[in-house]
Protein backbone atom coordinates (compact mmCIF):
# COMPACT_ATOMS: atom_id res chain seq x y z
CA UNK A 1 0.00 0.00 0.00
CA UNK A 2 2.74 2.37 1.02
CA UNK A 3 4.79 1.64 -2.11
CA UNK A 4 1.74 2.00 -4.35
CA UNK A 5 1.12 5.46 -2.99
CA UNK A 6 4.37 6.62 -4.53
CA UNK A 7 4.62 4.26 -7.48
CA UNK A 8 1.78 4.23 -9.96
CA UNK A 9 3.40 1.45 -11.94
CA UNK A 10 2.53 -1.14 -9.29
CA UNK A 11 -0.18 -3.66 -10.24
CA UNK A 12 -1.35 -6.45 -7.93
CA UNK A 13 -2.46 -9.79 -9.35
CA UNK A 14 -4.11 -12.22 -6.93
CA UNK A 15 -4.85 -15.89 -7.51
CA UNK A 16 -8.04 -15.80 -5.44
CA UNK A 17 -5.98 -15.79 -2.25
CA UNK A 18 -5.67 -13.07 0.43
CA UNK A 19 -8.32 -11.08 -1.39
CA UNK A 20 -9.86 -9.73 1.79
CA UNK A 21 -6.44 -8.66 3.07
CA UNK A 22 -6.17 -6.39 0.06
CA UNK A 23 -9.59 -4.80 0.58
CA UNK A 24 -8.12 -1.42 1.53
CA UNK A 25 -5.78 -1.53 -1.44
CA UNK A 26 -8.66 -2.38 -3.75
CA UNK A 27 -10.80 0.41 -2.30
CA UNK A 28 -8.01 2.90 -2.86
CA UNK A 29 -6.69 1.60 -6.20
CA UNK A 30 -9.54 -0.32 -7.86
CA UNK A 31 -7.79 -0.32 -11.22
CA UNK A 32 -4.55 -1.67 -9.90
CA UNK A 33 -5.68 -4.89 -8.25
CA UNK A 34 -7.01 -7.89 -10.12
CA UNK A 35 -8.19 -11.09 -8.54
CA UNK A 36 -7.68 -13.09 -11.72
CA UNK A 37 -8.79 -16.39 -10.30
CA UNK A 38 -7.26 -19.79 -9.84
CA UNK A 39 -5.10 -20.06 -12.95
CA UNK A 40 -1.51 -19.75 -11.76
CA UNK A 41 0.15 -20.43 -15.12
CA UNK A 42 -1.72 -17.55 -16.70
CA UNK A 43 -1.16 -15.27 -13.72
CA UNK A 44 2.58 -15.54 -14.33
CA UNK A 45 2.24 -14.98 -18.09
CA UNK A 46 0.05 -11.94 -17.44
CA UNK A 47 2.59 -10.57 -14.97
CA UNK A 48 5.26 -10.96 -17.66
CA UNK A 49 3.04 -9.15 -20.18
CA UNK A 50 2.39 -6.28 -17.74
CA UNK A 51 6.10 -6.03 -17.04
CA UNK A 52 6.91 -5.91 -20.75
CA UNK A 53 5.07 -2.61 -20.95
CA UNK A 54 6.85 -0.94 -18.03
CA UNK A 55 4.49 -1.76 -15.18
CA UNK A 56 5.73 -3.26 -11.91
CA UNK A 57 3.59 -6.29 -11.18
CA UNK A 58 3.21 -8.35 -8.03
CA UNK A 59 1.54 -11.74 -8.17
CA UNK A 60 0.41 -13.42 -5.00
CA UNK A 61 -0.99 -16.84 -4.31
CA UNK A 62 -0.15 -20.15 -2.64
CA UNK A 63 3.47 -21.26 -2.93
CA UNK A 64 3.30 -24.71 -4.60
CA UNK A 65 0.82 -23.54 -7.21
CA UNK A 66 2.57 -20.34 -8.20
CA UNK A 67 6.03 -21.94 -8.30
CA UNK A 68 5.96 -25.68 -8.94
CA UNK A 69 2.92 -25.56 -11.22
CA UNK A 70 4.03 -22.40 -12.97
CA UNK A 71 7.73 -23.14 -13.19
CA UNK A 72 7.84 -23.01 -16.99
CA UNK A 73 5.99 -19.69 -17.14
CA UNK A 74 8.46 -18.24 -14.61
CA UNK A 75 11.36 -19.71 -16.56
CA UNK A 76 10.33 -18.55 -20.03
CA UNK A 77 7.83 -15.70 -19.78
CA UNK A 78 9.58 -13.89 -16.93
CA UNK A 79 13.23 -14.98 -16.80
CA UNK A 80 14.08 -15.84 -20.42
CA UNK A 81 12.18 -12.85 -21.79
CA UNK A 82 13.48 -10.65 -18.98
CA UNK A 83 9.99 -9.46 -18.18
CA UNK A 84 10.69 -9.18 -14.47
CA UNK A 85 8.24 -8.87 -11.62
CA UNK A 86 7.54 -9.94 -8.08
CA UNK A 87 6.21 -13.34 -7.11
CA UNK A 88 5.03 -13.32 -3.52
CA UNK A 89 3.88 -16.64 -2.13
CA UNK A 90 2.20 -17.76 1.06
CA UNK A 91 2.13 -21.25 2.54
CA UNK A 92 5.87 -21.82 2.80
CA UNK A 93 7.11 -25.33 3.60
CA UNK A 94 4.56 -26.70 6.09
CA UNK A 95 2.60 -23.54 6.91
CA UNK A 96 -0.50 -25.34 5.62
CA UNK A 97 0.40 -28.50 7.51
CA UNK A 98 -3.22 -29.44 8.08
CA UNK A 99 -3.88 -29.50 4.34
CA UNK A 100 -1.42 -32.30 3.74
CA UNK A 101 1.18 -32.97 1.08
CA UNK A 102 -0.75 -31.33 -1.77
CA UNK A 103 -0.27 -27.98 -0.05
CA UNK A 104 3.23 -28.40 1.33
CA UNK A 105 5.93 -26.52 -0.54
CA UNK A 106 9.61 -27.25 -0.02
CA UNK A 107 11.09 -27.38 -3.55
CA UNK A 108 10.28 -23.79 -4.60
CA UNK A 109 13.55 -22.25 -3.43
CA UNK A 110 15.58 -25.08 -4.93
CA UNK A 111 13.98 -25.03 -8.38
CA UNK A 112 13.66 -21.29 -8.78
CA UNK A 113 17.29 -20.62 -7.87
CA UNK A 114 18.27 -22.60 -10.97
CA UNK A 115 16.74 -19.99 -13.28
CA UNK A 116 19.16 -17.45 -14.75
CA UNK A 117 18.70 -13.92 -13.46
CA UNK A 118 16.15 -14.66 -10.76
CA UNK A 119 16.41 -13.45 -7.17
CA UNK A 120 15.18 -15.87 -4.52
CA UNK A 121 14.34 -14.46 -1.11
CA UNK A 122 13.05 -16.21 1.98
CA UNK A 123 12.32 -13.41 4.44
CA UNK A 124 12.22 -14.77 7.95
CA UNK A 125 10.64 -11.77 9.66
CA UNK A 126 8.38 -8.84 8.90
CA UNK A 127 11.36 -6.51 8.98
CA UNK A 128 13.27 -8.62 6.47
CA UNK A 129 10.28 -8.67 4.16
CA UNK A 130 9.79 -4.93 4.46
CA UNK A 131 13.43 -4.06 3.80
CA UNK A 132 13.99 -6.57 1.00
CA UNK A 133 10.74 -5.86 -0.80
CA UNK A 134 11.45 -2.14 -0.84
CA UNK A 135 14.98 -2.66 -2.07
CA UNK A 136 14.21 -5.20 -4.80
CA UNK A 137 10.67 -4.74 -6.11
CA UNK A 138 11.38 -2.48 -9.07
CA UNK A 139 14.85 -3.51 -10.19
CA UNK A 140 13.58 -5.18 -13.37
CA UNK A 141 14.49 -8.69 -12.24
CA UNK A 142 12.18 -11.54 -11.41
CA UNK A 143 12.17 -11.73 -7.63
CA UNK A 144 10.61 -14.48 -5.56
CA UNK A 145 9.52 -13.61 -2.03
CA UNK A 146 8.58 -16.67 -0.02
CA UNK A 147 6.35 -15.53 2.84
CA UNK A 148 5.48 -17.49 5.94
CA UNK A 149 2.72 -17.24 8.53
CA UNK A 150 5.28 -18.06 11.20
CA UNK A 151 8.01 -15.41 11.06
CA UNK A 152 10.82 -15.35 13.59
CA UNK A 153 11.13 -12.37 15.90
CA UNK A 154 14.87 -11.85 15.86
CA UNK A 155 15.97 -8.38 14.86
CA UNK A 156 18.87 -8.50 12.42
CA UNK A 157 20.53 -6.07 10.03
CA UNK A 158 19.06 -6.69 6.59
CA UNK A 159 20.72 -6.20 3.24
CA UNK A 160 19.87 -8.05 0.01
CA UNK A 161 22.36 -10.79 -0.77
CA UNK A 162 24.03 -10.58 2.62
CA UNK A 163 23.86 -13.23 5.30
CA UNK A 164 24.07 -12.44 9.00
CA UNK A 165 26.45 -13.76 11.61
CA UNK A 166 24.27 -14.57 14.61
CA UNK A 167 26.99 -16.20 16.64
CA UNK A 168 30.70 -16.67 16.00
CA UNK A 169 32.70 -18.27 18.78
CA UNK A 170 35.40 -19.66 16.54
CA UNK A 171 33.83 -23.11 16.77
CA UNK A 172 34.69 -26.07 14.58
CA UNK A 173 31.05 -26.45 13.54
CA UNK A 174 29.02 -23.77 11.81
CA UNK A 175 25.26 -24.09 11.60
CA UNK A 176 23.67 -22.32 8.63
CA UNK A 177 19.95 -21.75 8.27
CA UNK A 178 17.41 -19.52 6.52
CA UNK A 179 13.95 -18.08 6.97
CA UNK A 180 11.49 -18.52 9.81
CA UNK A 181 13.17 -21.66 11.11
CA UNK A 182 15.81 -19.39 12.63
CA UNK A 183 13.75 -19.16 15.81
CA UNK A 184 14.04 -22.90 16.46
CA UNK A 185 17.64 -23.11 15.29
CA UNK A 186 18.78 -20.21 17.46
CA UNK A 187 17.09 -21.70 20.51
CA UNK A 188 18.80 -25.02 19.83
CA UNK A 189 22.22 -23.49 19.27
CA UNK A 190 22.17 -20.92 22.03
CA UNK A 191 24.17 -22.92 24.58
CA UNK A 192 26.09 -25.11 22.18
CA UNK A 193 29.65 -24.55 20.94
CA UNK A 194 28.75 -23.78 17.32
CA UNK A 195 28.78 -20.78 15.08
CA UNK A 196 25.40 -19.74 13.63
CA UNK A 197 24.92 -18.04 10.27
CA UNK A 198 21.61 -16.91 8.84
CA UNK A 199 20.43 -16.16 5.28
CA UNK A 200 17.30 -14.53 3.94
CA UNK A 201 18.62 -14.35 0.39
CA UNK A 202 18.97 -17.78 -1.19
CA UNK A 203 20.00 -16.39 -4.57
CA UNK A 204 22.44 -14.80 -4.80
CA UNK A 205 23.84 -16.61 -1.79
CA UNK A 206 26.39 -14.69 0.22
CA UNK A 207 29.37 -16.73 -1.02
CA UNK A 208 31.88 -14.55 0.77
CA UNK A 209 30.26 -15.23 4.12
CA UNK A 210 29.99 -18.97 3.44
CA UNK A 211 33.62 -19.10 2.35
CA UNK A 212 34.66 -17.44 5.60
CA UNK A 213 33.57 -20.62 7.40
CA UNK A 214 35.01 -23.09 4.91
CA UNK A 215 37.57 -24.37 7.38
CA UNK A 216 34.75 -25.43 9.73
CA UNK A 217 32.29 -28.27 9.30
CA UNK A 218 29.11 -26.68 7.98
CA UNK A 219 25.74 -28.05 9.03
CA UNK A 220 22.83 -26.70 7.00
CA UNK A 221 19.52 -26.89 8.85
CA UNK A 222 16.51 -25.96 6.75
CA UNK A 223 12.87 -26.96 6.34
CA UNK A 224 13.13 -26.88 2.54
CA UNK A 225 15.53 -27.63 -0.27
CA UNK A 226 17.56 -24.86 -1.87
CA UNK A 227 19.70 -23.37 0.88
CA UNK A 228 22.01 -26.38 1.06
CA UNK A 229 22.40 -26.44 -2.72
CA UNK A 230 23.10 -22.70 -2.76
CA UNK A 231 25.77 -23.02 -0.07
CA UNK A 232 27.35 -25.84 -2.06
CA UNK A 233 28.11 -23.29 -4.80
CA UNK A 234 31.14 -22.42 -2.70
CA UNK A 235 33.93 -24.90 -3.45
CA UNK A 236 35.83 -27.09 -1.01
CA UNK A 237 33.33 -27.16 1.83
CA UNK A 238 32.69 -29.88 4.35
CA UNK A 239 28.93 -29.52 4.40
CA UNK A 240 25.95 -31.68 5.32
CA UNK A 241 22.18 -31.14 5.37
CA UNK A 242 19.65 -31.74 8.10
CA UNK A 243 16.01 -31.23 7.26
CA UNK A 244 13.83 -33.12 4.86
CA UNK A 245 14.22 -36.72 3.83
CA UNK A 246 13.35 -38.38 0.53
CA UNK A 247 9.71 -39.00 1.33
CA UNK A 248 6.47 -37.07 1.28
CA UNK A 249 5.32 -35.61 4.55
CA UNK A 250 2.20 -37.61 5.28
CA UNK A 251 1.14 -35.94 8.51
CA UNK A 252 -1.41 -33.24 9.21
CA UNK A 253 -1.58 -30.87 12.17
CA UNK A 254 0.15 -27.53 12.68
CA UNK A 255 3.55 -26.41 11.49
CA UNK A 256 5.12 -27.10 14.89
CA UNK A 257 3.78 -30.68 14.76
CA UNK A 258 5.47 -31.26 11.42
CA UNK A 259 8.70 -29.62 12.55
CA UNK A 260 8.74 -31.87 15.63
CA UNK A 261 8.08 -34.94 13.47
CA UNK A 262 10.95 -33.95 11.17
CA UNK A 263 13.29 -33.25 14.05
CA UNK A 264 13.27 -29.51 13.42
CA UNK A 265 11.88 -28.42 16.79
CA UNK A 266 14.36 -26.81 19.25
CA UNK A 267 14.72 -29.90 21.43
CA UNK A 268 15.34 -32.33 18.57
CA UNK A 269 17.66 -29.88 16.86
CA UNK A 270 19.69 -29.45 20.04
CA UNK A 271 20.08 -33.22 20.36
CA UNK A 272 21.05 -33.55 16.72
CA UNK A 273 23.63 -30.76 16.90
CA UNK A 274 25.06 -32.15 20.14
CA UNK A 275 25.45 -35.56 18.49
CA UNK A 276 27.14 -33.94 15.52
CA UNK A 277 29.55 -32.13 17.85
CA UNK A 278 30.37 -35.40 19.61
CA UNK A 279 30.93 -37.24 16.33
CA UNK A 280 33.12 -34.44 15.08
CA UNK A 281 35.07 -34.57 18.30
CA UNK A 282 35.08 -30.85 18.89
Amino acid sequence: MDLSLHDERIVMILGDVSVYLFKDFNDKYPNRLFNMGICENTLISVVAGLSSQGLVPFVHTIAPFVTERSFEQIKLDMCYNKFGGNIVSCGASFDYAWDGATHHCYTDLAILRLLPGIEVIQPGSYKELDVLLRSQYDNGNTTYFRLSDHPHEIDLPVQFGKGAVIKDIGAEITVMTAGPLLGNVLEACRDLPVNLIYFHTIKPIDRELVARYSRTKILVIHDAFGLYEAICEVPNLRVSYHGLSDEFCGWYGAVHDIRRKLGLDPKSLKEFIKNTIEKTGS
Partner: protein
Amino acid sequence: MIPVCKEIRKEILKISNASGHGHIPTCFSIVEIMYAVYSNMKHYPKNPLWEERDVFLLSKGHAALGHYCTLAKLGYFDIKRVYSFGSFMSDFGCHADRFKVPGIEASTGSLGHGIGLAVGMALAFKLKKTDRRVFVVIGDGESNEGTIWEAVMVATNVGLDNLTIIYDNNMSHGRGLQIRNPAERFRAFSCEVVEVDGHDIDALGPEIAKRGNKVRVVVANTVKGYGCKTFVQDQYAWHRRSPNDSELEMLLRELDEETI
Protein backbone atom coordinates in the same frame (compact mmCIF):
# COMPACT_ATOMS: atom_id res chain seq x y z
CA MET B 1 -2.64 -16.02 -53.61
CA ILE B 2 -1.40 -12.46 -53.65
CA PRO B 3 2.16 -12.05 -55.00
CA VAL B 4 3.70 -10.87 -51.71
CA CYS B 5 2.46 -13.95 -49.86
CA LYS B 6 3.82 -16.15 -52.62
CA GLU B 7 7.19 -14.42 -52.31
CA ILE B 8 7.20 -14.96 -48.54
CA ARG B 9 6.47 -18.66 -49.07
CA LYS B 10 9.28 -18.92 -51.61
CA GLU B 11 11.73 -17.46 -49.12
CA ILE B 12 10.53 -19.92 -46.47
CA LEU B 13 11.20 -22.80 -48.87
CA LYS B 14 14.60 -21.52 -49.93
CA ILE B 15 15.77 -20.83 -46.38
CA SER B 16 14.55 -24.19 -45.19
CA ASN B 17 16.42 -25.83 -48.05
CA ALA B 18 19.58 -23.87 -47.31
CA SER B 19 19.50 -24.37 -43.55
CA GLY B 20 17.99 -27.82 -43.14
CA HIS B 21 15.52 -26.43 -40.60
CA GLY B 22 11.94 -25.24 -40.44
CA HIS B 23 8.34 -26.22 -39.87
CA ILE B 24 7.21 -25.29 -43.37
CA PRO B 25 3.54 -26.35 -43.45
CA THR B 26 2.73 -24.53 -40.20
CA CYS B 27 4.43 -21.42 -41.61
CA PHE B 28 2.47 -21.69 -44.85
CA SER B 29 -0.87 -21.76 -43.06
CA ILE B 30 -0.34 -18.32 -41.47
CA VAL B 31 1.37 -16.26 -44.19
CA GLU B 32 -1.81 -14.39 -45.14
CA ILE B 33 -2.77 -14.02 -41.48
CA MET B 34 0.52 -12.38 -40.55
CA TYR B 35 0.56 -10.20 -43.62
CA ALA B 36 -3.02 -9.09 -42.93
CA VAL B 37 -2.24 -8.30 -39.28
CA TYR B 38 0.82 -6.21 -40.11
CA SER B 39 -1.13 -4.46 -42.86
CA ASN B 40 -3.75 -3.41 -40.33
CA MET B 41 -1.78 -2.70 -37.18
CA LYS B 42 0.28 0.33 -36.23
CA HIS B 43 3.93 -0.48 -36.65
CA TYR B 44 7.05 1.11 -38.02
CA PRO B 45 9.71 -1.24 -39.39
CA LYS B 46 12.36 1.47 -39.33
CA ASN B 47 11.77 1.88 -35.59
CA PRO B 48 10.58 -1.46 -34.22
CA LEU B 49 10.37 0.02 -30.71
CA TRP B 50 8.15 2.94 -31.75
CA GLU B 51 6.18 3.72 -28.61
CA GLU B 52 2.78 3.94 -30.27
CA ARG B 53 3.02 0.61 -32.07
CA ASP B 54 0.55 -2.22 -31.75
CA VAL B 55 1.94 -5.58 -30.76
CA PHE B 56 1.95 -8.83 -32.71
CA LEU B 57 2.80 -12.08 -30.93
CA LEU B 58 3.27 -15.48 -32.48
CA SER B 59 2.12 -17.84 -29.74
CA LYS B 60 2.68 -20.84 -32.02
CA GLY B 61 6.36 -19.99 -31.98
CA HIS B 62 7.51 -22.86 -34.19
CA ALA B 63 6.33 -20.86 -37.20
CA ALA B 64 9.18 -18.43 -36.56
CA LEU B 65 10.63 -18.84 -40.04
CA GLY B 66 7.38 -17.60 -41.54
CA HIS B 67 7.44 -14.68 -39.13
CA TYR B 68 11.03 -13.77 -40.05
CA CYS B 69 10.25 -13.86 -43.79
CA THR B 70 7.20 -11.67 -43.23
CA LEU B 71 9.16 -9.17 -41.14
CA ALA B 72 11.92 -9.08 -43.76
CA LYS B 73 9.37 -8.43 -46.49
CA LEU B 74 7.98 -5.56 -44.41
CA GLY B 75 11.43 -4.02 -44.11
CA TYR B 76 12.49 -4.91 -40.57
CA PHE B 77 15.77 -6.45 -41.79
CA ASP B 78 17.41 -7.90 -44.88
CA ILE B 79 16.16 -11.35 -45.81
CA LYS B 80 19.77 -12.41 -46.42
CA ARG B 81 20.31 -12.46 -42.65
CA VAL B 82 17.63 -15.12 -42.27
CA TYR B 83 19.61 -17.58 -44.41
CA SER B 84 21.65 -18.36 -41.29
CA PHE B 85 18.43 -19.80 -39.84
CA GLY B 86 19.01 -22.29 -37.03
CA SER B 87 22.78 -22.23 -37.30
CA PHE B 88 25.31 -21.64 -34.53
CA MET B 89 25.59 -17.93 -33.69
CA SER B 90 22.68 -17.02 -35.96
CA ASP B 91 20.23 -14.40 -34.71
CA PHE B 92 17.46 -16.37 -36.35
CA GLY B 93 16.68 -19.51 -34.38
CA CYS B 94 13.93 -22.00 -35.02
CA HIS B 95 12.07 -20.21 -32.25
CA ALA B 96 12.54 -16.47 -32.12
CA ASP B 97 14.60 -14.58 -29.55
CA ARG B 98 13.25 -11.10 -28.87
CA PHE B 99 16.70 -9.80 -28.04
CA LYS B 100 18.07 -10.79 -31.44
CA VAL B 101 15.38 -10.09 -34.02
CA PRO B 102 13.84 -6.65 -34.61
CA GLY B 103 10.06 -6.82 -34.51
CA ILE B 104 9.88 -9.82 -32.19
CA GLU B 105 8.02 -8.68 -29.10
CA ALA B 106 8.43 -11.85 -27.02
CA SER B 107 10.43 -15.04 -27.28
CA THR B 108 7.95 -17.86 -27.73
CA GLY B 109 8.23 -21.53 -28.49
CA SER B 110 6.74 -23.51 -25.65
CA LEU B 111 3.11 -23.73 -26.67
CA GLY B 112 0.41 -21.95 -24.70
CA HIS B 113 2.61 -19.12 -23.40
CA GLY B 114 2.26 -16.32 -25.96
CA ILE B 115 -1.42 -15.77 -25.40
CA GLY B 116 -0.93 -15.21 -21.65
CA LEU B 117 1.76 -12.66 -22.42
CA ALA B 118 -0.62 -11.04 -24.89
CA VAL B 119 -3.28 -10.76 -22.20
CA GLY B 120 -0.79 -9.08 -19.86
CA MET B 121 0.29 -6.66 -22.58
CA ALA B 122 -3.28 -5.79 -23.51
CA LEU B 123 -4.12 -5.23 -19.85
CA ALA B 124 -1.07 -2.99 -19.52
CA PHE B 125 -2.30 -0.89 -22.46
CA LYS B 126 -5.71 -0.54 -20.81
CA LEU B 127 -4.12 0.51 -17.52
CA LYS B 128 -1.93 3.01 -19.33
CA LYS B 129 -4.98 4.33 -21.15
CA THR B 130 -3.48 3.96 -24.59
CA ASP B 131 -5.39 2.70 -27.61
CA ARG B 132 -2.59 0.35 -28.62
CA ARG B 133 -3.77 -3.12 -29.55
CA VAL B 134 -2.41 -6.65 -29.24
CA PHE B 135 -2.73 -9.33 -31.90
CA VAL B 136 -1.79 -12.90 -31.13
CA VAL B 137 -1.78 -15.94 -33.41
CA ILE B 138 -2.49 -19.24 -31.71
CA GLY B 139 -2.50 -22.67 -33.30
CA ASP B 140 -5.31 -25.17 -33.13
CA GLY B 141 -2.93 -27.88 -31.93
CA GLU B 142 -1.54 -25.38 -29.44
CA SER B 143 -5.07 -24.91 -28.18
CA ASN B 144 -4.89 -28.34 -26.60
CA GLU B 145 -2.96 -26.53 -23.88
CA GLY B 146 -5.11 -25.52 -20.92
CA THR B 147 -3.31 -22.20 -20.63
CA ILE B 148 -4.93 -21.05 -23.87
CA TRP B 149 -8.34 -21.28 -22.27
CA GLU B 150 -7.18 -19.86 -18.94
CA ALA B 151 -5.87 -16.83 -20.80
CA VAL B 152 -9.10 -16.43 -22.77
CA MET B 153 -11.10 -16.57 -19.54
CA VAL B 154 -8.92 -13.91 -17.94
CA ALA B 155 -9.03 -11.73 -21.06
CA THR B 156 -12.81 -11.74 -21.26
CA ASN B 157 -13.17 -11.30 -17.51
CA VAL B 158 -11.10 -8.11 -17.50
CA GLY B 159 -12.70 -6.87 -20.72
CA LEU B 160 -9.77 -6.69 -23.11
CA ASP B 161 -11.42 -5.17 -26.18
CA ASN B 162 -7.92 -4.31 -27.41
CA LEU B 163 -6.96 -7.98 -27.80
CA THR B 164 -7.48 -9.88 -31.05
CA ILE B 165 -6.77 -13.60 -31.09
CA ILE B 166 -6.30 -15.20 -34.48
CA TYR B 167 -6.91 -18.93 -34.31
CA ASP B 168 -5.05 -20.76 -37.05
CA ASN B 169 -7.53 -23.52 -37.76
CA ASN B 170 -5.24 -25.58 -39.99
CA MET B 171 -6.56 -28.87 -38.63
CA SER B 172 -3.22 -29.93 -37.16
CA HIS B 173 -5.13 -30.73 -33.98
CA GLY B 174 -6.73 -33.54 -35.97
CA ARG B 175 -3.67 -35.66 -35.25
CA GLY B 176 -4.59 -35.91 -31.60
CA LEU B 177 -6.96 -34.04 -29.34
CA GLN B 178 -9.53 -32.52 -31.67
CA ILE B 179 -11.22 -29.18 -31.08
CA ARG B 180 -14.46 -29.23 -32.96
CA ASN B 181 -16.33 -25.98 -33.59
CA PRO B 182 -13.68 -23.63 -32.21
CA ALA B 183 -15.82 -20.57 -32.95
CA GLU B 184 -18.55 -21.95 -30.74
CA ARG B 185 -16.07 -22.55 -27.96
CA PHE B 186 -14.70 -19.01 -28.08
CA ARG B 187 -18.25 -17.66 -28.06
CA ALA B 188 -18.94 -19.75 -24.97
CA PHE B 189 -16.01 -17.95 -23.36
CA SER B 190 -17.75 -14.60 -24.14
CA CYS B 191 -15.55 -13.61 -27.06
CA GLU B 192 -16.70 -11.79 -30.16
CA VAL B 193 -16.00 -14.32 -32.90
CA VAL B 194 -15.83 -14.24 -36.67
CA GLU B 195 -14.85 -17.04 -38.97
CA VAL B 196 -13.02 -16.34 -42.21
CA ASP B 197 -11.03 -17.98 -44.96
CA GLY B 198 -7.51 -17.61 -43.56
CA HIS B 199 -5.96 -17.42 -47.02
CA ASP B 200 -8.25 -14.69 -48.33
CA ILE B 201 -6.42 -11.49 -47.55
CA ASP B 202 -9.44 -9.37 -48.52
CA ALA B 203 -11.61 -11.24 -46.03
CA LEU B 204 -9.00 -11.30 -43.28
CA GLY B 205 -8.00 -7.63 -43.39
CA PRO B 206 -11.29 -6.01 -42.39
CA GLU B 207 -11.95 -8.56 -39.67
CA ILE B 208 -8.54 -8.00 -38.16
CA ALA B 209 -8.90 -4.23 -38.40
CA LYS B 210 -12.21 -4.20 -36.54
CA ARG B 211 -12.15 -3.43 -32.84
CA GLY B 212 -15.29 -4.38 -30.97
CA ASN B 213 -16.41 -4.26 -27.37
CA LYS B 214 -15.05 -7.62 -26.37
CA VAL B 215 -12.04 -9.86 -26.82
CA ARG B 216 -12.10 -10.48 -30.54
CA VAL B 217 -11.35 -13.89 -32.03
CA VAL B 218 -10.80 -14.43 -35.73
CA VAL B 219 -11.10 -18.12 -36.48
CA ALA B 220 -9.03 -18.36 -39.63
CA ASN B 221 -9.77 -21.51 -41.55
CA THR B 222 -6.51 -22.42 -43.16
CA VAL B 223 -4.76 -25.27 -44.90
CA LYS B 224 -1.56 -26.58 -43.40
CA GLY B 225 1.02 -26.28 -46.17
CA TYR B 226 -1.22 -24.01 -48.28
CA GLY B 227 0.38 -23.35 -51.66
CA CYS B 228 2.00 -26.73 -52.31
CA LYS B 229 -0.01 -29.88 -52.81
CA THR B 230 2.91 -32.02 -51.62
CA PHE B 231 2.67 -30.53 -48.15
CA VAL B 232 -1.09 -30.73 -48.02
CA GLN B 233 -1.24 -34.32 -49.18
CA ASP B 234 1.54 -35.53 -46.91
CA GLN B 235 1.39 -33.31 -43.85
CA TYR B 236 2.85 -35.71 -41.35
CA ALA B 237 6.03 -36.34 -43.35
CA TRP B 238 6.59 -32.63 -43.92
CA HIS B 239 5.73 -31.34 -40.43
CA ARG B 240 9.39 -30.72 -39.68
CA ARG B 241 11.33 -31.54 -42.79
CA SER B 242 13.40 -29.45 -45.14
CA PRO B 243 13.39 -29.95 -48.90
CA ASN B 244 16.53 -31.06 -50.73
CA ASP B 245 17.47 -29.30 -53.96
CA SER B 246 15.24 -31.31 -56.27
CA GLU B 247 12.33 -31.15 -53.81
CA LEU B 248 12.83 -27.40 -53.55
CA GLU B 249 12.54 -27.11 -57.32
CA MET B 250 9.35 -29.16 -57.29
CA LEU B 251 7.84 -27.17 -54.41
CA LEU B 252 8.65 -23.82 -56.01
CA ARG B 253 6.97 -25.06 -59.18
CA GLU B 254 3.92 -26.16 -57.21
CA LEU B 255 3.79 -22.76 -55.58
CA ASP B 256 3.96 -20.99 -58.94
CA GLU B 257 1.25 -23.20 -60.34
CA GLU B 258 -0.81 -22.71 -57.15
CA THR B 259 -1.53 -26.41 -56.93
CA ILE B 260 -3.64 -25.74 -53.88
